[in-house]
């Protein structure tokens, strides 16, 4: 197998989780795609040493790079985040649904808006679990925090989402 094909295996094994992490941090999947590309660019440059690591070791390496990139991005985007926070403070308008599919779409919209307003640590953990497909233990390793902390953050996030959906359902009935 050539180097490109070997690297594609690494890329496919970890890209979803890395992208989910950046989406959780930035709230923007396109910006997250740019940051994911930068992460894998660094991985490609270090591929000779990375290819010798086990799957967990590769994930740990990638998330160390991702966390550092995310810190840099965070410094550059404080102003933008402040502007977004003002926009997010606007109440969610929920129109009367006409069908089950519309109802489902509106529930997704309620969840999306609620996730945007979650505290960042909860949002990142939830995005890694729901979109990145990682377990609590894998998220803990990726973020460098105890697994119990991850489980607590996920629990709080899920409770907030369940309450938001419950409120939406009450309004609909």
């Amino acid at each position, binding site marked *: 197998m050539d180097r490109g094909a070997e690297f594609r295996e690494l890329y496919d094994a970890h*890209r979803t989780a890395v992208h*989910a992490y950046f989406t959780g941090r930035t709230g923007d*999947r396109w910006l997250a*795609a740019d940051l994911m590309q930068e992460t894998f660019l660094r991985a*490609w440059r270090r591929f000779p040493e990375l290819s010798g690591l086990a799957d967990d070791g590769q994930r740990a390496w990638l998330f160390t790079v991702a966390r550092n990139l995310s810190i840099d991005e965070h410094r550059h985007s404080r102003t933008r985040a402040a502007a977004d926070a003002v926009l997010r403070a606007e109440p969610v308008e929920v129109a009367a649904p006409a069908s089950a599919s519309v*109802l489902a779409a509106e529930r997704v919209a309620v969840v*999306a808006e609620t996730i945007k307003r979650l505290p960042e640590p909860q949002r990142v953990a939830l995005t890694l679990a729901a*979109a990145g497909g990682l377990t609590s233990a894998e998220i803990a390793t990726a973020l460098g925090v105890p697994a119990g902390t991850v489980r607590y953050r996920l629990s709080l996030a899920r409770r907030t989402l369940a309450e938001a959906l419950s409120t939406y359902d009450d309004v609909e009935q």
Partner: protein
Amino acid sequence: MDLDDTLRAWAAQEVTLPTPIVDDVFRQVVASSPGLDTRWWTRFSGRLAANVVASTRPRIPVTGVR
């Protein structure tokens, strides 16, 4: 549609990248030179400058401070 179903739909709709974007990112990454760390020039030029400065210092035997 329970919370997990809604979260799956949210992930597919709001997070997951389209396959063409995923493939394009990969192509751009592997198009760069593997193993070439562009910081090598910074390190090399830094070492070169240090060597040049060191080689032009007058050689005074160290026999004690007067």
